[in-house]
């Protein structure tokens, strides 16, 4: 078959489609977004009616996928790493219920935080939930792990976590496809109590999960993705996990002189690790992310063979690996000099010219003048750029939804005014429940839902609350007299400032909705309309 030129994220989508997937569930988040977008655009997926609509958040996505698995079909749920924090309750318990149809949880980590607020390593979640984890080292492997992953999940009777990182998600290479497998037919679980985690049943299911660990480990030891290659030089044995394997082999295109264990399936393959330990004087561990394998093998007392990696300073403790850092750890003479000419200036990302968030912040800054700095809690989205010059309007960005709840806590502590700024998609994701808390207590605070009618930051996906925001606020119990909508535009500046001042003075929950379509989605829509006309 001819090779397709695919991003790692797209390779996973294609692999899942070819592996018989019936539905994909996700909330967007860099670097995972392209997986679902690929399925949404795939002709075959549309013909097969593979579900691919966005979910309101990662938890609803995870649970919906679990429901599809319950009904016997193969399904994937995708998210960025911090999304797994949101989905964690469902995720951890899904290991205990087990699956019926194959269930793959694809999580994209972002070491070096290219577009994230932390660099947490999802392999720990896999270990925590006691699930098998797959970690592709290249695009072809990404394809195959998704393709064969459903079978693995079905044969081990447990969800399988596929962990990727930015570098593989957003890098393209040629990928060879396999024959398309049929989708499963609808079939209920054999044991109708499998998914009922009442304590008495949960205890039994948990013991089953514990007992399965041996089978999971054996599966890792026999996995085609875990490769052991003995080298002539026994001074060092190298364990390279996932994409770190590439940075190792970049220095040994003709084959490595040391013994190498490539790990791309967990739990850690004990047999091969023991073999490596017996064979080599010292051990070097290369992993993209936290030192998970290293911590385990080095041990608290460091009494075994010397282990090198991120903990002993051979590699930096944080940030993404690259060929130079790995080369240096291996003793190669590499350049680490990144100094650029003094005249090269930084270009921080900024809000687009013409963006409605700009007008909302201009008004907010003026309305806030009499109160001073420190009253505005914000959230995650394009509008977070309001933290940077020229606006410098906001004082927090922690996790999706935290603007509203933090503003409530600060108001409870006596801060007046206490203001939240949140986007429409973030509000739908996890702002609504916090607003309910505030309404229940009649907290004195103002929530600005800066509505650009899309999920802007991640490229303009459908926003779940689109067209429903006022109704949702009313339904939650906000006084309709204090739900105010305005078009954020320079010509409405004074009106907006006045509106904010009034609501800041109100002792209760108020909502201001500056609403104007994202100029990026607007431009795209105009281009499409023009194309359809011609």
């Amino acid at each position, binding site marked *: 078959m001819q090779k397709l030129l695919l991003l790692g994220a797209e390779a996973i989508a294609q692999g899942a489609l070819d592996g018989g997937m019936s539905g994909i569930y996700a909330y967007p988040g860099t670097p995972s*977004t392209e997986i679902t977008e690929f399925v949404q655009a795939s002709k075959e997926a549309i013909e097969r009616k593979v579900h691919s609509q966005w979910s309101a958040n990662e938890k609803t996505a995870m649970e919906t996928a679990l429901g599809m698995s319950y009904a016997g079909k193969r399904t994937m749920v995708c998210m960025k790493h911090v999304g797994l924090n949101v989905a964690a309750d469902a995720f951890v318990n899904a290991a205990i219920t087990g699956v019926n149809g194959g269930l793959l949880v694809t999580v994209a980590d972002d070491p070096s935080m290219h577009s994230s607020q932390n660099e947490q390593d999802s392999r720990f979640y896999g270990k925590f939930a006691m699930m098998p984890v797959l970690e592709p080292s290249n695009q072809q492997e990404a394809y195959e792990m998704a393709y064969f992953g459903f079978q693995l999940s079905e044969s081990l009777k447990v969800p399988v976590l596929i962990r990727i990182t930015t570098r593989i998600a957003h890098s393209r290479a040629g990928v060879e496809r396999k024959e398309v497998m049929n989708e499963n037919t609808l079939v209920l679980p054999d044991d109708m109590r499998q998914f009922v985690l009442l304590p008495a049943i949960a205890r039994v299911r948990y013991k089953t999960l514990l007992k399965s660990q041996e089978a999971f480990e054996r599966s890792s030891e026999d996995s085609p993705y875990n490769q052991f290659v003995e080298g002539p030089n026994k001074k060092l044995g190298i364990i390279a996990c996932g994409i770190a394997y590439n940075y190792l082999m970049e220095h040994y295109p003709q084959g490595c002189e040391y013994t190498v264990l490539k790990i791309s399936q967990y739990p850690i393959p004990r047999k091969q690790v023991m073999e490596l330990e017996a064979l080599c004087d010292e051990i070097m561990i290369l992993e993209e992310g936290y030192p998970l394998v290293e911590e385990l093998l080095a041990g608290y007392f460091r009494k075994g063979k010397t282990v090198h990696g991120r903990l002993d300073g051979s590699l930096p403790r944080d940030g993404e690996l*690259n060929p130079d850092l790995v080369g240096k750890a291996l003793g190669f003479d590499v*350049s680490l000099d990144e100094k650029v000419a003094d*005249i090269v200036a930084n*270009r921080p990302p900024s809000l687009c010219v013409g963006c409605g968030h700009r007008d909302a912040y201009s008004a907010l800054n003026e309305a806030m003048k009499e109160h001073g700095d420190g009253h505005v809690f914000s959230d995650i989205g394009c509008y977070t750029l309001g933290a940077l010059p020229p606006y410098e309007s906001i004082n927090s960005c922690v996790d999706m939804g935290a603007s509203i709840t933090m503003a409530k806590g600060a108001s409870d502590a006596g801060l007046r005014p206490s203001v939240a700024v949140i986007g429409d998609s973030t509000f739908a994701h996890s702002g609504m429940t916090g607003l309910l808390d505030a309404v229940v207590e009649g907290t004195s605070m103002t929530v600005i839902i800066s509505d650009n009618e899309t999920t802007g930051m991640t490229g303009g996906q459908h926003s779940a609350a689109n067209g429903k925001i006022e109704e949702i606020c009313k339904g939650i119990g906000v006084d309709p007299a204090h739900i105010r909508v305005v078009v954020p535009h320079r010509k409405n500046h004074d009106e907006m400032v006045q509106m904010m001042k009034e609501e800041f003075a109100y002792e209760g929950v108020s909502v201001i909705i500056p609403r104007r379509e994202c100029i990026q989605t607007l431009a795209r829509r105009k281009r499409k309309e023009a194309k359809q006309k011609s």
Partner: protein
Amino acid sequence: MKTDIIISGVGGQGILSISAVIGMAALDNDLHMKQAEVHGMSQRGGDVQSNLRISSEPIYSDLISLKGADLILSVEPMEALRYVPFLSESGWVVTNTTPFKNIDNYPSDEALMDELNSHPHVVLVDADAIAKDCGSARASNIVMLGAAAPFLGMPFEALEAGIRKIFGRKGEQIVDMNLKALRAGKEVAERVVANAQ
């Protein structure tokens, strides 16, 4: 054969269409290729780059080493300078000269040109003007691609075929205009290389 290229510019300038043409040409010539892109946050007017690796042998790393690139191909002059630490000693800088100024502390034209010209192997291309002469300012990316052609280690016909594939749906006229832009860019680079020898 092995060519490591860093393509750079500012979010929204469309560097990905350049890598798409090169990537397609590479696959059609049975070469291995890997291309790491930047998506997300930095696309909002920030600096963006793509690591493009082409080789007749299998490629491991998605990222290019410091001092490892054979070519920096930039659609913006200051952005070319940002990646000079990645350039090998014999590598070339091929850049558009039209600045994209969305920050207050953008360097002066003079300082910028001095810095670029201090580099031993540099091809400066007024791609916007050349593209306009060829029929559309929007083809300036393709002019830059043409200017990179002598350094790619691939037959020029492969790039022409890539252009035909990518623009084919838009009609003969657009294809011809882009082919003209591609050739015009190549001529500029060839002249500079000839003078350097």
